[in-house]
């Protein structure tokens, strides 16, 4: 038996900790690779089944299209343009309407939510009207806007605005109401004026509510713009879908759908980046800590 001096033991412990850490990291990497691999496998298998099904006429490609058909459609739109002009122009028009509607609706919703959240009387008076307005099926307003504002961009933007406004408003209002009373009292006693309280306490504490609603409502803005185009337009992805529908072109409908989904995902990614930047003070969710 040999005696181990304390320094030896410390060194042994240090190396074993390093080894354990390396093992844990390798395990995490393997798991990550497994998840990605499984996701890809599911995608490939389902696309293959769809394609084969269409090829052997188990799934009728006339109604349900096929991956290769969709791809051909997208490729021809990209290279030759659509019946209503180049593809990028359609995407641009729809995105412009969506962003404008989203921005106006979000800013309006946030402002209204904060004003009503901070003023009990206004909230009590207006809450009933907001409930009524909110219960109108919003898509129906699209027809109203087309009649009133014409086939141009304004009617689509207006529809996107109403789609976004109520969601953001409801969240901003709730966020303002949930602002911590002790925190508000603290700011008051530290010397904050009502305006300073709104700016430095109310808005930051409502921020996570507002950001959550922005995620959802961008999708709503896109729906508003596309439905608006669907109901009557000269440009845009919605018109592309409605033209394809009119020609019983399932490939076209699916291709436009996929382009819209990609647009939504890209913007969703950007909003998440923005959110992480704005609320960097928030503790990491428990399962992300220590990795």
């Amino acid at each position, binding site marked *: 038996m040999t005696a181990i001096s304390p320094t030896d033991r410390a060194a042994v412990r240090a190396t074993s900790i390093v080894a354990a850490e390396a093992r844990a990291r390798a395990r995490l990497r393997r798991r990550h690779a497994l998840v990605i691999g499984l996701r890809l496998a599911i995608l490939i298998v389902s696309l293959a089944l769809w394609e084969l099904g269409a090829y052997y006429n188990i799934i009728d490609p006339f109604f349900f299209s096929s991956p290769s058909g969709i791809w051909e459609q997208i490729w021809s739109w990209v290279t030759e343009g659509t019946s209503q002009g180049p593809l990028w122009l359609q995407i641009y028009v729809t995105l412009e309407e969506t962003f404008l509607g989203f921005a106006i609706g979000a800013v309006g919703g946030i402002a209204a939510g904060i004003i009503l959240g901070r003023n009990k009387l206004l909230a009590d008076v207006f809450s009933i009207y907001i409930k009524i307005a909110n219960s109108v099926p919003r898509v129906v307003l699209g027809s109203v806007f087309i009649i009133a504002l014409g086939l141009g961009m304004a009617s689509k933007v207006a529809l996107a605005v109403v789609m976004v406004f109520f969601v953001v408003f409801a969240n901003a209002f709730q966020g303002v109401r949930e602002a911590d009373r002790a*925190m508000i009292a603290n700011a008051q006693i*530290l010397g*904050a004026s009502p305006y300073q309280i709104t700016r430095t306490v109310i808005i930051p504490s409502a921020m996570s509510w507002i950001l959550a609603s922005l995620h959802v409502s961008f999708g709503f803005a896109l729906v508003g713009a596309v439905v608006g185009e669907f109901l009557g337009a000269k440009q845009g992805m919605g018109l592309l879908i409605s033209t394809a529908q009119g020609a019983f072109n399932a490939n076209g409908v699916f291709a436009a759908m996929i382009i819209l989904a990609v647009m939504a995902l890209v913007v969703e990614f950007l909003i998440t980046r923005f959110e992480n930047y704005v609320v960097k003070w928030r*503790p990491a969710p428990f399962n992300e800590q220590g990795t």
Partner: protein
Amino acid sequence: MQLQTMAAEKLSQAAPPADAAIAIDDVTLRFVTPDGHMMTAIRDFTMTVARGEFACVVGPTGCGKSTTLNLVTGLLRPTTGNVRVMGNPVTEISRDIGFVFQADALFPWRSVIDNVAAGPLYRGTPKAQAYDRARDWIARVGLARFEKHYPHQLSGGMRKRVALAQTFINQPKILLMDEPFSALDMQTRTAMQDELLDLWSELKSSVVFVTHDLEEAVALADKVYVLTAGPGTVKSVYRIDLPRPRVMADIRYDQKFIEIAKVIWNDLREEVQLGQSRGLQTGH
């Protein structure tokens, strides 16, 4: 008359003198509950805190301790009676007041230094100067290395230190504290109590410190107010003549301290029992 020799002198209540730092004179406060009833939170309440005095308020839960503090800040108005701070009736939130809350009232989206600088910035101090002072105060509470941290990255004790710095940076003449250390573990609490007495002896503010911990009250205070179970009113007032400076870790083994705490506990016990039995009845 044995009480005097034990350094816990029971005081008789008189109308507050005009120059007191805080004077609550025969105040009753009723809340209108959401179902339209009136609920008396405190009644016939009289309390005086002289300039530079450290007063503690003890009483069972729900007896109106926080309500009392809110009367002094002006966040609540008395139904009858009047409240004066530094000789003036309370009409708005006074700039002389500092308040340390029981719960965390730090701004979680601001770093430590931004939290501490909040008071001066709200009050219109130029930015550079506000941050200089904030840095100073953060160093004084021993958090110099944590200026850029966010509250969620600090321990409970460290967050309380930030809260103290945030309050003390405004150099309040009146310091109100609502069970500030009740969520801390024993060692941290003792350290914070020492820290508080240090800061207080420098700043010479008048303090009202609310707690439900009698030993904490006796250890810190010049004067202890015992409240009755709700609706709260002052049951008795004791002057604590333990010498200063006091060391929190040792004082609880001091013979005189133990005797005083016993005397006051005899007074408080029945109120606590009353408060508890009522709490059980009403389900609070």
